[in-house]
């Protein structure tokens, strides 16, 4: 299995193309089996992954346009490994959750999802800027289609907004990437888009600043950071359940992953310089969007805004500049993917039953659908960061790591554990507690086998990784430490060297 | 002494007259007249500059401009006749069919 990464990327594509000829009625079964194979492949990748090796593994390199140094170049390290696995998992569970009677034209849905999976895996595995950009942009297309074809009443508006907004940002990012290649050409005399080569590039602080901003435009809109977040509630509000799940679980992570993969190692000085800026935006993101989430009437919008709020914590972790914060933030990406994905699934479940997501239509669901309420409660607790659930580990580490950078900022961002619980508990109380206010809801059925199949694995993961996160944290930690060492080595300004705490320095201090 | 500037300025003024005609004319035939004025104005400029530099290229260009103008008139008039047959008028306001 030398070409495991290529297989991971292109197997869904091939399967998706083949999916066109699959019989309509067996489309879902086909989708499940393909996604399952993909998921197993990703697990196989994990199994054969060398956890002590911090560098890129399973690398593949095929020159495509050699005069411009564009090549098909993929590799995986501890940072991307688990995001890939999570993408495969969430796609699989999302497909399992699809209700054949509710989704018109299931075949198209399956094909779109498989294409989407290809692009997602591609983004996280590619080590060539052009290939990365290619997958990055391609991922918009299936999502646009999913929202536009199966969405709610104003789906076209939401889909177009999602597409144009993120597309506009990534164009700026493309300019930034091309500029880096040009600068590399100036310096080294050869064209290359190989990320690992770029890491060697020594840029002046001023250039770093502007290039950081260019890439920021692309990544920040994807994350989405305040004030670029407004496409998200629309997209989530209109997207079908599966769209929201993938969007929240994986697509948003592309932004933060971009920061980790590109911004940090390429522009260490600018990254350190930008900490106050990022911190301000992130704190606003955390507090402001959490309060907006509290004001929502629609269950799904609460979770959409909570996503933004949590992404703020992830952003803070990315810029913590130490292994604790950065590792925690990557772990939080996974946990947020799983938890918010599960929450969107849960909202989808109730929406399928009642046709509404407005909280005031519910009330007292806990007594009608106890299992549903239990699963929702577990995910809620994971979302507010209860210890021994997956949500705590990342959040704790991020806040812990960032405390070294800015105590005040950490306290402000730490309010997430308060206001996060405010909107989540309010949501839970409004929908699940109290007497049954809506007579229509009295005969709602509890989770059925299909839904349980999709949700129980997530519950298991939430608990497992909350109690024993080591198998995941270990490889992340190894790669993160290497990243920090590289960053510190590359940093030019003394203050950047001061802020970036690589393990080496920590050891020296001891 | 009449220098090149005189010719060029005259050419510019004539061109502007033609330009003005193009702007204000609504009748297609009159528009053609205006364009002829502009073409001639340019021809003067070509000839004048050619003379100034002692170069034949200016005259050559003017020559070809005349040739083009001639063919333009031939085809253009043919088109005008067709249009007139169709609409009974050559007024641009009348024959405009596309509504923005």
């Amino acid at each position: 299995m030398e070409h495991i990464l290529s297989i991971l990327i292109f197997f869904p594509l091939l399967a998706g193309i083949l999916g066109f000829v699959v019989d309509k009625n067996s489309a879902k079964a086909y989708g499940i089996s393909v996604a399952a194979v993909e998921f197993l492949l990703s697990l196989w990748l994990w199994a054969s992954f060398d956890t002590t090796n911090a560098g890129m593994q399973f690398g593949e390199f095929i020159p495509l346009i050699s005069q411009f140094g564009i090549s098909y170049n993929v590799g995986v390290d501890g940072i991307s490994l688990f995001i890939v696995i999570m993408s495969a998992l969430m796609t699989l569970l999302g497909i399992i959750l699809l209700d054949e009677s509710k989704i018109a034209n299931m075949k198209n849905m399956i094909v779109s999802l498989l294409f989407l999976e290809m692009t997602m895996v591609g983004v996280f595995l590619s080590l060539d800027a052009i290939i990365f950009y290619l997958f990055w942009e391609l991922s918009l297309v299936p999502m646009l289609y999913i929202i536009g074809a199966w969405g709610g009443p104003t789906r076209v508006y939401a889909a177009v907004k999602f597409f144009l907004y993120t597309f506009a940002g990534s164009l700026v990012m493309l300019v930034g990437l091309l500029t880096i290649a040009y600068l590399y050409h100036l310096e080294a005399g050869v064209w290359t888009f190989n990320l690992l080569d770029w890491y060697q590039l020594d840029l002046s602080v001023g250039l770093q600043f502007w290039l950081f901003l260019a890439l920021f435009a692309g990544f920040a809109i994807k994350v989405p950071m305040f004030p670029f977040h407004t496409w998200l509630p629309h997209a989530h509000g209109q997207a079908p359940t599966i769209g929201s799940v993938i969007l929240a679980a994986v697509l948003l992570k592309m932004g933060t992953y971009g920061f980790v993969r590109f911004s940090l190692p390429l522009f260490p000085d600018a990254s350190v310089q930008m900490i106050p800026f990022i911190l301000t935006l992130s704190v606003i993101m955390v507090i402001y969007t959490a309060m907006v989430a509290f004001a929502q009437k629609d269950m799904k919008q609460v979770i959409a805004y909570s996503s933004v709020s949590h992404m703020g914590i992830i952003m803070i972790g990315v810029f913590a500049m130490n292994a604790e914060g950065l590792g925690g933030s990557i772990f939080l990406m996974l946990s947020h993917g799983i938890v918010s994905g599960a929450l969107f699934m849960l909202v989808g479940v109730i929406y399928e039953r009642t046709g509404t997501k407005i909280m005031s239509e519910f009330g007292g669901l806990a007594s009608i659908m106890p299992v549903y309420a239990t699963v929702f409660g577990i995910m809620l607790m994971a979302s507010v960061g209860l210890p021994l659930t997956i949500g705590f580990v990342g959040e704790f580490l991020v806040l812990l790591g960032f405390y070294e950078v800015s105590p005040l900022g950490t306290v402000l961002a730490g309010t997430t554990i308060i206001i996060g619980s405010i909107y989540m508990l309010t949501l839970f109380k409004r929908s699940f507690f109290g007497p049954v206010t809506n007579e229509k809801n009295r005969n709602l059925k509890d989770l059925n086998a299909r839904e349980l199949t999709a949700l129980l694995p997530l519950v298991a993961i939430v608990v497992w990784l909350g109690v024993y996160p080591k198998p995941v944290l270990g490889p992340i930690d190894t790669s993160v430490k290497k990243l920090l060492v590289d960053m510190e080595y590359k940093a030019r300004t003394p203050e950047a060297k001061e802020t970036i705490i690589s393990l080496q320095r920590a050891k020296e201090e001891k | 002494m009449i220098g090149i500037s005189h010719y060029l300025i005259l050419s510019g003024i004539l061109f502007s007259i033609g330009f003005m005609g193009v702007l204000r004319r609504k009748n297609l035939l009159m528009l053609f007249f205006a364009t002829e004025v502009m073409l001639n104005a340019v021809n003067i400029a070509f000839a004048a500059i050619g003379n100034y530099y002692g170069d034949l290229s200016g005259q050559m260009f003017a020559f070809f401009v005349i040739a083009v103008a001639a063919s333009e008139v031939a085809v253009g008039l043919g088109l005008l006749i067709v249009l007139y047959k169709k609409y009974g008028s050559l007024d641009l306001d009348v024959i405009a069919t596309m509504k923005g």
Partner: protein
Amino acid sequence: METLVYIALFAPFVGSLFAGLFFARSPKNIIVGIVNPALIFISFLASVALAFHVAEYGEVHIKMMDWISVGNLNIPFGFLVDEVSVTMMVVVTLVSTVVHIYSNGYMDHDKSFNRFFSYLSAFVFSMMILVMSDNFAGLFIGWEGVGVCSWLLIGFWYHKKDVTPDINPAISPSYAANEAFIMNRIADLGMLVGLFLIYWNVGSLQYDVVFEKLPHLADGLLVSIAIALFIGAMGKSAQFPLHTWLTDAMEGPTPVSALIHAATMVTAGVFLVIRANPLYSLDAVAGVSYFIAALGTFVAFYAASMALVNRDLKRIIAYSTLSQLGYMFAAAGLGAYWIALFHLAAHAFFKALLFLGAGNVMHAMDDELDLFKMGGLKKVMRGTYIYMGVASLALAGIPPLAGYFSKDAIIETAFNEGTYILWFSLVFTAGLTAFYSFRQVFLTFEGEERYKKYGFHPHEMYKYVLVAMSPLAILAVVAGWFQETFHEFIIAVLPDYEMSHHTHHNAWWLGLLVLAFAVSGIVIAYKKYAQKGENAFKQDAEVENGFLYKLLMNQYYVPYFYVEFIVKPYTVISEKFWAIDKAVVDGTVDMIAKVLYRTGDKTRTMQNGNLSSYLNWMGAGALLLILAAAVSAVMG
């Protein structure tokens, strides 16, 4: 010994899973009602065994596995069983066992019987983690775990609907649950900050490492850590100003109030301060420690004053819990950690007993809590009367019951430290305590049988429940006799605290003074509330309209203040933010799109199909180009 530790820790967890996984959806199952208490009892036995082991051989320290390990951070699941934690373990498991058995009777008719046991056992498990962990992160796990269980249990009767605060100050169980959780989270943030400070300055969260390195840290840092940790303690132990959730938490089933909101969880804050005694006894943080003592004293008085007028059976006990927590903090803040822990244990016994007694009354009175609708219940509920009377005597500090020894020691400590204001406040509060405890007891059991007017048919609790309560009653009586034994046992880990010679000298009249206050409190209560006939207690409208009465009845308007100045503004600001989000943030984005659309719309008229206007536009464009050419020629 490891096995014993694991048995003590995981038996409740097994119970929780047992009840939760296998019986969650089935109706009441008596197997759950037997197995769960049995498992907790096993845990209790293991704890007792461990206590003997610890007394004999010293602490047991084991590491189960790594939990989080990133960068330099390494947090294991490690468990430390020493004198302090084993004391807590015994107290927790003992009270839990009784409460579990009691719940069999109390929750008899509840359709969510199994769920209740699942939650209750989960709580015990979390509490065990809290007390047994060998590091701050593990403590935090338990800390949050008990928070969640408390949330689940306060909101156990989630199906009740929200009512206005005039009818029920807690609004609804689910509302009270959320309030408790959120308020605790505020404090948890402080605690987290404390953990971060410790980690970045010490490099570890293990108790032993931290306490060893603490003295080498800068003073300012130590103060910050002490404050941050105490903020955490304030939330869990419901100290002012984070106290309002505790009384609202009485919405939960009474066994829950007994276990969580009296005996165990709320003492976690005290436990934290005791656990972190190497920090709080440093000279650098003397100011913080004194603040803790002062705040404790203030809360003791403050809560007692509110208990004076309240009519709600459970709320009065809740206030008294608050008040007693204040006593514990006063002791801990003054450096008498072992006394604080002793009072914690003694208090757990008699307060749980008091609550369970109240539960019996509720059970008898169809969940009626208004004291003014009771009275004269002693005829039908003799057993409960005795229990509650004993518990109240203990609470009031009447010798030779438990409360006398523990509370007296605290008051003596205050005297010994020369903090006479605190001392007098505590003495006075002791008088108030005696008064309100017996006001409650007398209003319930003595005097006119007012309940008849309201058509209640009270009946005594099941026999086995009363029997099950007896260990608590016995301990409420005898616990104080073991003060010296406990002292010797505990000073192995906690700093010893001895009264000075001067205090010893004055001990006899100090004790008498406290006793005098307590007895007079009881006597007044008897005079006022226990009479029959023409002296019988009547509501006095004049008193009830008085300023003081209203102030106390409305909890000094603190909840009102929170609602008006925090909850409502938060809601309003949230709504405003949402409006801003739609109008401004999203509006800007849409504006860009709209500008583009409008520009297209407006310029569309250019494409009107009229050649003449095209020519005009072209002419204008040509002119612009020529101008540009001219300008560039001039410029360049």
